């Protein structure tokens, strides 16, 4: 029933009581009038009705009026709006987008600052029947202020928020909003966002929101942005090429841009690459022949025309080189040059070609790659199964697929991190049927085409197509993909996360429980912690390079924005969700069914004036 905290109501009631007592005491204070002869007045009073009775009636009436005034004042201060369970109450969830794209500059002011201002303005137009829950959303959705009508609290909460270096996840955000509104009377949803095309164009409808009014406060109009979406590095066997960098870029503008990619390693410049990005293009660049690098390489985009794009957050990224020991790999294949080339080019792999049907000695090899075949005997080592046969025992194969690609994939998985698979074309593939314990990693439509799991006691990764049946092998990311598959199979670097996104949990193995750990990072982060177990976790909140110093070693973790969706900042106008255009919020006419605070206070003051005139009358007439 109350919109004020209990202590506020109690304090105001106390003040009201003090005022009433003060008024009553003032009323008791009578003005003095000097008269010529009091005896005349005594005679006069004796002539009329009993003054005492009249006095008492007046005082009792005055007390009643004072009590009425106090009650009206309390009613004016204590909101008499319907409670949250009252059918007249509207429940409004506000999802405030705090993802990285909201930091985009809009002619001197960020999108987020625009959003704050507009949201505060819109909230001020709401009437007292609306209670609001404010939540921020990026990669996760967090309630900030629970159901309240207090616009001052809402305003303060909104102004306390800031943009995070995280990507958005509107599927989760909308699902959370639906859960907040579940069972509430007259639910409404406001989305405060820049509504980028990349975020909203493929968003699936949340079933619980289909009957709920969804409105959008949209900010942002600029679309000029060039950003890094993926950045990875690996050492190459070929000494002439040394380091190979794979850089995924996106140009969201409607004109091309020429950029310089400045490459540094631990503060030392190791190279510059000039690239041209066509309008609206997404491009992967491979940079080779660099040397002078150490553990970490940083890439920074600089526009050749010197112009600053709208979102500087994605203009730099870090790549961390792993330290991987030598791995012995058996390739069981009838012959696939691309597969061989990918394996052979990795300096950390010792590859041996084995003819199909020949048993592979587990003492000689650490892992095996089966290309289109299965071993006749049970698996004896971790295996990568390429294009498993239809009649195989290890992987069940179902629907044949033609002309597909990687529609979605597990970007966080060790196998697929730092890989941009969006434009891989697959001519022929077979859908894989994942068993109960398998983990599907990539899909063509809803068909699994990449999974990992365990067979016959050995970890396996299965891919539903042959490398040569796609242009995957033509991509510069193909060797890295194979490398990461093997890394996963062998369990190496499994817990050694090299890159991540802000907001995602990073787990690092430590040597022993209680090991002292020093964590440094962007924004002056420098703290000493100790591990509670053999794994230590932290969550990078900001973009940049994090350094973890353990007793026996040190590790680097790169937190990159790494999201094409966040780099594509062009707003979708009008914003469409689940087939409907989201309108701007409309202010509802103020409800006339509930007494206004001002009216109650005015009634109280009028009654006080009446009581003052009728019973007090201190003025000289």
């Amino acid at each position, binding site marked *: 029933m109350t919109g004020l905290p209990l202590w506020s109501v109690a304090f105001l009631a106390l003040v009201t009581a003090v005022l009433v007592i003060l008024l009553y005491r003032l009323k008791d204070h009578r003005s003095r009038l000097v008269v010529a002869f009091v005896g005349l007045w005594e005679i006069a009073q004796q*002539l009329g009705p009993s003054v005492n009775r009249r006095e008492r009636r007046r005082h009792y009436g005055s007390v009643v009026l004072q009590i009425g005034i106090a009650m009206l004042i309390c009613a004016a201060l204590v909101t008499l709006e319907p409670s949250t369970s009252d059918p007249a109450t509207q429940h409004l969830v506000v999802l405030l987008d705090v993802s990285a794209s909201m930091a985009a500059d809009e002619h001197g002011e960020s999108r987020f600052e625009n959003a704050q201002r507009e949201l505060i303005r819109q909230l001020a137009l709401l009437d007292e029947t609306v209670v609001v829950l404010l939540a921020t959303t990026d990669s996760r959705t967090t309630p900030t202020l629970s159901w309240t009508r207090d616009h001052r609290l809402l305003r303060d909460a909104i102004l306390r928020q800031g943009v995070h270096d995280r990507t958005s996840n509107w599927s989760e955000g909308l699902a959370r909003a639906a859960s907040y509104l579940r069972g509430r009377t007259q639910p409404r949803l406001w989305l405060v966002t820049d509504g980028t095309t990349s975020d909203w164009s493929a968003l699936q409808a949340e079933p619980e929101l289909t009957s709920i009014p969804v409105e959008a406060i949209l900010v942002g109009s600029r679309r000029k942005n060039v950003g890094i979406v993926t950045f990875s590095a690996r050492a190459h066997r070929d000494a002439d090429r040394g380091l190979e960098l794979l850089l995924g870029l996106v140009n969201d503008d409607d004109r091309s841009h020429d950029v310089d990619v400045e490459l540094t390693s631990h503060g030392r410049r190791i190279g510059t690459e000039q690239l041209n990005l066509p309008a609206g293009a997404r491009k992967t660049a491979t940079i080779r022949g660099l040397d002078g690098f150490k553990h970490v390489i940083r890439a920074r985009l600089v526009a050749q025309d010197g112009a600053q794009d709208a979102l500087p957050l994605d203009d730099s990224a870090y790549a961390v080189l792993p330290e991987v020991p030598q791995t012995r790999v058996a390739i069981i294949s009838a012959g696939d040059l691309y597969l061989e080339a990918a394996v052979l080019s990795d300096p950390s792999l010792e590859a041996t070609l084995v003819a199909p049907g020949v048993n592979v000695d587990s003492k000689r090899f650490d892992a095996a790659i089966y290309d289109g075949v299965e071993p006749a005997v049970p698996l004896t080592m971790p295996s990568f199964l390429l294009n498993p046969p239809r009649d195989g025992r290890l992987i069940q194969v179902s629907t044949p697929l033609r002309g597909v690609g990687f529609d979605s994939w597990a970007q966080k998985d060790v196998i697929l991190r730092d890989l941009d698979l969006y434009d891989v074309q697959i001519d022929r593939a077979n859908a894989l049927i994942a068993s109960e314990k398998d983990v599907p990693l990539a899909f063509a439509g809803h068909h699994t085409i990449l999974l990992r799991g365990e067979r016959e006691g050995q970890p396996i990764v299965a891919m539903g197509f042959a490398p040569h049946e796609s242009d995957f092998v033509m991509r510069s990311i193909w060797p890295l993909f194979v490398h990461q598959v093997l890394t996963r199979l062998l369990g190496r670097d499994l817990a050694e996360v090299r890159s991540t996104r802000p907001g995602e949990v990073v787990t690092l193995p430590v040597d022993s429980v209680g090991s002292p750990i020093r964590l440094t990072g962007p924004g002056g982060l420098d703290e000493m912690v100790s591990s509670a177990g053999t794994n230590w976790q932290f969550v990078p909140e900001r973009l940049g390079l994090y350094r973890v110093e353990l007793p026996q070693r040190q590790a680097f973790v790169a937190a990159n924005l790494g999201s094409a969706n966040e780099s594509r900042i062009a707003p979708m106008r009008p914003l469409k969700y689940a087939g409907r255009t989201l309108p701007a919020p409309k202010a509802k006419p103020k409800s006339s069914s509930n007494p206004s605070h001002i009216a109650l206070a005015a009634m109280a003051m009028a009654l006080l004036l009446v009581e003052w005139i009728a019973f007090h009358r201190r003025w000289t007439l």
Partner: protein
Amino acid sequence: MASVVRDGIRDPYGPDFENKLEMLLLLSRRSNRSPFHAEKLGKRSGAGVEFAEYRDYVSGDDFRCVDPYAAMRFDRLLLRLYEEEEDQSVYLLVDTSRSMGQHAERKLDHAKRLAAALAYIGLAALNRVTVLTTSERPRLEYPTTRGRGQFPSILRFLRGIEASGATRLDGSLRHFARQHRRRGLVVLLSDLYDPEGFERGLDAVRSEGFEVQVLHLVDDRDLEPALHGDAVIVDCESGHEQSVTITEGLKRQLRVARENLVCAASQHCRGRGFGYATCDVANPFDQAIRHFILQPGRFAR
């Protein structure tokens, strides 16, 4: 008539005061009823021309006063006695208690004007005029004087009177009666706001052989309080306080109370043979004097 301030001194008389006095004097001389005829027949027997009474001759009396016709008729020696004419004394008692000083001394100023007018007429009629102030006791006194030439002094005396002290008419009048042996006309100018009453005092004066006239000063401003609502009224003389709620009804009752007071005073005075008149301070003073001259002892405003 409002008072005028000249050279820092309040002048209660006004610009046309002396002209009005002259007219009143003329009126007094023409009226047979005026109480200010200077030569009045006294109570004592003396060398007058008016026959008073017979008395038996005793050794030592003047033989020339024996009435021969009365001796032949009554066959004994009888003396013929005559009334002796004497001057009238006029005592003007002005109430100068604080109640008379309320509302910018309207009542006191009116009393001064009345007293001045009466003094002028009395002096012009060759009366002996004495002016006294009375509050808790007779405090100030302008000594008995005769002749119109003393009038300016009396004016100055009256002008300098200020309201102070409480009203104690009973004690003041008794004290006056004891202090002044020469009988005459006593004119009391007062608002009669005495919590102990004025009746016994006047009776005491009358019993000493004085002729009493009461000019009861009334001011409607006493019935029109400046406040409305809850108030504490304070008696200007005693300081007695009382809580009241001032309403229109109470104001009406105040007016009735004063009417009752006036009526009671009038009844008492008439019952004792005193002259009584109410003088509203809002009315010109000469109007009251005119009534006093023409109809002394009649209820007049």
